[in-house]
Structures are given as C-alpha cells and as structure tokens.
C-alpha cells in the first residue's frame, strides 16, 4: 500500500522511535524494541481483555480499535494511523480495553511499558513528549465528543475525511488523494450514522464538487471547503 515499508530497516525504525519519543542519543533502544512481522489485513494485533504489558507504535498501515458491547455489537473506538501509539492503561489495569485489528497490511513495533516508564522517569524530555501525546489524544477525543453531540451527518463525514487526510498527506505523493481503508459500515459505526447515510453524504459531496470518489480512494477537490465544513462553519449541504 505504501512505499515506506521497504525502507523500514532496523536502523531506520530505531531512529524513528528515538525521534518520536524525543530520546537522547545515548539510549540503547535495540534490546527493547521488538519489530513485529507485517500484520495482514483483517488480522488482530490484540484482543480486548488481553494482558497489557507492551506499548505499540504503528509504523505503516491503518488499524481499528473497537470494543464489543453487551449485546455483541462492535463499537469502534478509534482508527490508528502511522506514528500513533497504542498506550497501555497504566499498571493497575492489566487488561486491554479494546481489540485492535489491521484494516490494511500494517507494520508495528512494540516495547515493554516498564521500559517506557523508565525512560520517562530518567529523561524530562521523554516525559514531556509522552504526556503531550496523551494530552493530544484527550483533546482530540473531546473534539470528537463535541462533534457527535452536535454535528450533523455532513459535518461528521467531513471531519472524518479531513482526519484521514491529515494523517496521510505527509507521506503520499498525491496530496489530495485520500485512501480510505475502512468500510462505509465502519465509518457509519464510528460516526454514529447508518451505512446508507454515509453513502448518501459521500454522493452529496461528489455532486457538489467537493470530492471525486474512486474506490477505495477519494480525491479532495475542495479541501478548504471540506475543512470549513468539518469545523461546523458552513451550513449543511442537505436540502431534503
């Protein structure tokens, strides 16, 4: 799916991790960072309830974190993009709160949670970087909660498209083409919309010249307008 995969040798990976966590140069990462073999589309990284001792970092691909509710329904917690970290829940909660599955071929590395905690204690820079990443998740979730509580279908889908775009844009050659690895039904479940509504909004965006649909990709023809819509600053496109 991406060109990044082939150049991700061991050395590059360790440099990447070092950069991500703002590690000092003299830290010997190699013994602690485990590079997993590629995870095939549809395969699980871990399941809800599994013991949580490792922090995972997604290098390439897309993953989906979900929970299974009491009535056996799958509810999607978030999508994970390259460079994002799957944190543990701290030491006193030893089980994973979500299941994580690959939506396309994904590369991950992991390191023991205890090792990361140690790095944080020993280096102020690492500690600040980690807490900043955690705070960012909280802030993003709050924005998403606000979206779900107040946003109409158009705005929700616009938000989702811009969210994927912001994650993919830096690493792609065609900046306005978004690759959408999740199904319409996944998107619907994540946004609290029915699958049909999601499809209808996509068609409406296409009809109004904002996007061009070419499965599984979408081309952003008017990113500025899409961004404004995702922020809730434009009236809905819906006319009936």
């Amino acid at each position, binding site marked *: 799916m991406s060109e990044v995969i082939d150049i991700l040798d061991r050395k590059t990976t360790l440099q990447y991790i070092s950069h991500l966590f703002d590690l000092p140069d003299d830290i010997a990462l190699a013994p602690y960072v485990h590079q997993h073999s590629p995870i095939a589309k549809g395969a699980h990284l871990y399941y809800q309830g599994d013991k949580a001792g490792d922090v995972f970092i997604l290098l390439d691909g897309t993953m989906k974190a979900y929970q299974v509710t009491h009535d056996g329904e799958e509810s999607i917690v978030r999508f994970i993009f390259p460079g994002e970290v799957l944190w543990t829940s701290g030491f006193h909660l030893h089980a994973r709160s979500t299941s994580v599955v690959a939506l396309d071929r994904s590369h991950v590395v992991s390191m023991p949670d205890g090792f990361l905690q140690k790095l944080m204690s020993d280096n102020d820079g690492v500690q600040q970087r980690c*807490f900043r990443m955690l705070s960012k998740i909280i802030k993003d979730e709050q924005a998403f909660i606000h979206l779900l509580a107040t946003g109409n279908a158009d705005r929700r889908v616009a938000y989702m498209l811009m969210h994927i775009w912001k994650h993919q844009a830096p690493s792609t050659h065609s900046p306005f083409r978004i690759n959408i690895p999740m199904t319409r039904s996944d998107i619907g479940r994540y946004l609290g919309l029915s699958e049909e509504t999601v499809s209808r909004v996509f068609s409406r965006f296409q009809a109004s010249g904002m996007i061009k649909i070419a499965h599984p990709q979408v081309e952003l023809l008017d990113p500025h307008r899409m961004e404004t819509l995702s922020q809730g600053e434009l009236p809905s496109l819906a006319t009936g």
Partner: protein
Amino acid sequence: MSLVAIDQCRIASMSVKSLQRLMSDHPSVQLRCYELLSRLIAEEQSFINLLASANAERRLAFLLMQLCRHRYATYLSGFGFSVPMSRADIANYLGLRVETVSRSFTRLENRGIVQVCGRKVVLADLPSLELIAAGHDSPMAMTLVKDTCAGR
C-alpha cells in the same frame, strides 16, 4: 476550553513545572499521572461509544451513574442526590434535545428506576440503572412496563 463552576467548588492548583519536577523525582507520581490520563482516555472512549450508538435513556442513565460515581464514594438503591447541571446542560452534553432529556427522566421514573423532583434524583433501582447505562437493558423492567400498559 473555558471552565465555569456550576455549584460551589474548592480548587487547588500547582504549576506544570512543579508537577513535572515531582514526576521526575518520584517514578510513582509519574506512574499515577500516566494512569489518570489513561483512565480519562478510556472514559472518553466509553462516552464516544455512548454518543455514537446509544438511545436517550441509556445516555441519561450513563450520566446519572457517572455523577454518582464521581461525587460519592458509595452509593446504593434509595440513594438521592442533587444533579448540579441544568436540563439544558445535560441535553448539550449528551447530544439530545431538552425535551428528550425530560422525556427520558419521565420514562425512567415510570419504570420505577429513579424518582425525580426538580434537580433532586433518587436512585430507586440502582441495579437496573446500571444495566441500562451499560447498554444491557433489563428485559424484566421492559416486561413490567408492557404489563402496566396492558393493564390500563
């Protein structure tokens, strides 16, 4: 974001620098902060699930349980407390209309799960409320409601 008190509050504060200092000097403090942030993330995720999928009654039950859990160390059936936020605030938070919030309160009251008097709420049937909040509605309660309707 902006913060406003909705009832009388007591606040303590410390500078971010001091907290960072404390965390660096004491790994246990760092671990505790990490754990608190992780818990906040997990709670937000449950709330996201709730907003993406749940009906009005479940949203309200979730909020009542959350209020109870945060404000009081222990709680049991028959426990009463005052809901500090207005109906409009509740509606805004839960992504519902004000009328829907009021209707949901009434429905929970009709099922004998809560008693409502203005802002005061008595949790008459805590186990059922907990089940509804968790998305696992009690079939028994549903049956009772149906029976009551049929009997009228």
